């Protein structure tokens, strides 16, 4: 099976399975009738968005999606919080928000165990919970929370692996820059990428792995990648766990004059998009669909309000992006036309 076939296969299948092993339902199946919409509007409900980390395009698109859809549903977003990967802060945020007792909380847990108690409180207070990507430990779909919408991070990991293989014609030495923290989303991508390379591409050798801790992920990735290129003179590619570290890898490659280095990553940030458009280091990436994801989550929250029973696990398939489909991909991901910066860089 060639990378292209593999990628093609990916497009309309979701590899992740739900926290309870549920098989995913496609986001396209989540819809609200006009009556339902009207009914929700009538409720004058309130919602809060509790993020794990707000500092990247992904979160912003996610929030945009939510806000757009909530507005359409006549739901007021009363608070948006950013825990900066810190579970204690996220718990505080949830508690604080509970003071306004909102009807809906859409959230992504920094840490399934640490935050469980706080979400539990909210659930018991009757708040409709919709999760992104991951759910707190011991939560039961339908009773404790409405549903979880996943971006199929595993699938994206796989995609980025195939794209790497494609760019390397199936052979070479590569390095991995991963997130040195046990965070569900990033861990899935890492596992997927590694597994895919090891199983499908015997001629691709993973010669270096380096974790990065932040908060300056770009700088950390820069240092890590530089060291990889120094330590393994003929390294051909480096995979970065998301676009922010990827920018660090790009800087390192530039500085070390490795114009031939292949970089693949996950998430369609503007910078990596530009780099790709220029035919630069980024040969491909697995994109999530944060905007759609947000929209879907908002709709599911609506399900919750209506008491309409929702599928426990909704997933959006991974979106492999290469230069050819970059502009369309951007449209798909952000549901706006790609900015001039990218379009101009295409040629």
């Amino acid at each position, binding site marked *: 099976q060639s990378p292209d076939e593999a990628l093609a296969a990916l497009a309309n299948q979701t590899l992740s399975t739900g926290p309870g092993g549920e098989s995913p339902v496609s986001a396209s199946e989540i819809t609200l009738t006009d009556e339902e919409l009207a009914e929700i509007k009538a409720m004058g409900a309130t919602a809060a968005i509790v993020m794990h980390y707000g500092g990247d395009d992904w979160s912003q698109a996610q929030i945009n999606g939510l806000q757009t859809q909530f507005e359409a549903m006549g739901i007021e977003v009363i608070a948006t919080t950013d825990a900066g990967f810190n579970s204690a802060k996220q*718990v505080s945020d949830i508690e604080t928000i509970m*003071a306004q007792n909102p009807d809906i909380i859409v959230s992504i847990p920094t840490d399934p*165990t640490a935050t469980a108690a706080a979400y539990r409180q909210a659930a018991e207070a009757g708040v409709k919970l919709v999760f992104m990507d991951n759910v707190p430990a011991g939560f039961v779909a339908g009773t404790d929370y409405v549903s979880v919408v996943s971006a199929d991070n595993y699938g994206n990991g796989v995609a980025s692996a195939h794209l790497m293989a494609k760019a390397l014609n199936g052979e070479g030495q590569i390095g991995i820059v991963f997130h040195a923290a*046990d965070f569900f989303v990033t861990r899935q991508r890492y596992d997927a990428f590694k597994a895919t390379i090891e199983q499908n591409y015997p001629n691709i050798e993973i010669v270096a792995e380096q974790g990065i801790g932040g908060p300056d992920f770009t700088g950390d990735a820069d240092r890590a990648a530089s060291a990889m290129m120094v330590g393994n003179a003929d390294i051909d590619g480096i995979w970065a766990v998301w676009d922010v570290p990827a920018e660090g890898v790009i800087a390192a490659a530039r500085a070390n004059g490795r114009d031939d280095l292949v970089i693949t990553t996950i998430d369609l940030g503007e910078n990596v998009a530009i780099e790709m458009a220029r035919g630069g280091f980024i040969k491909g990436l697995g994109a999530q669909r944060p905007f759609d994801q947000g929209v879907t989550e908002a709709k599911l929250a609506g399900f919750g309000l209506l008491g309409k029973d929702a599928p426990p696990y909704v997933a959006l398939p991974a979106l492999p992006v290469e230069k050819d489909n970059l502009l369309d991909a951007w449209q798909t991901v952000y549901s706006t036309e790609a900015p001039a910066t990218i379009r101009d860089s295409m040629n």
Partner: protein
Amino acid sequence: MSDTVAVAAREAPLAYFKRTWRQNIIYIGFVVVFAFFAITLYDKGFLAPNNILNIARQTAMIAVMAVAMTLVLSSGEIDLSVGAVAGLASVTTAMAVAWGGLPAGIAAGIMTGITVGLINGFLSTRLMIPTFLTTLAMMGIAKGTAMWISGTAAIPVLDRTYPAIFGGGNIGPIPTLLLWMLVIGVIGHVVLRRTKFGRQVLAVGGNVVAARYSGINTSRIKLWVIVISAVTASIAGMLYAGRLQTGRFQLGEGDELSVIAAVVLGGTSLFGGKGTVVGSIIGALMIGVINNGLILMGLEYSQQLIARGGIIILAVALSQAGTRPA
């Protein structure tokens, strides 16, 4: 530093009033900030008893660490490792609870603090490394150790009593966290104001030579202060673990700045010789109130950051004027 405070001995009543008024304005500042939110956020449930308790809960760890940090700064030293140590303690205590139950957990948490404290103290008082550097290095070491022994994973605390004691439960309507904060606060206040030890801490921070000339064993005092700080940090870590029923290396990350901010906000001098535990706790609460209020206001995170900075400056602009060393 403090040599530079230049105020008249027989000063006019007015001048005196102005001075003390300014020293105590952190309290006024706190009241103002609180009142501001109470009014603007009335309908948003800011004053809801539960929200007030939330603020207490969310501030408790910072406040607890701030108490010890008051001693540290008063003695002319600094401790940047508190946040990381709290994280480490949360991990050790959680692992120990899983292994040997409550007593093991408590022992492990405290031992973590004692060990770290002794290392920091030894390096600073024997090898004469500035605490800024020792504790900065310790910050990395503690965080690394926590990540390492936990494999960066969260260690769940399944024991039921542990969270009840540490930060989880309530006693009647009152969260245990609040009690921890009060108890440690009172102890800290008495130690600094009313005990020989506290007096010697202030003396060491005010003029280390004079302290030595007066027969005070300055390095012993500093050692103690540093150990106390580390142990308190580990208690904070245990409270985190209890509150979140989890031990994790990221818990407490970055707290050192909030803690020192709270203490300085409270009117303790960064240059030593002068400290107030009550002020520190008020400072911590003030930061807590601000964070809470800004979220309730529905500001975006970026706006929250800006507003917090602005409010702090406003509050201090009054409170610190005139009283700051030069």
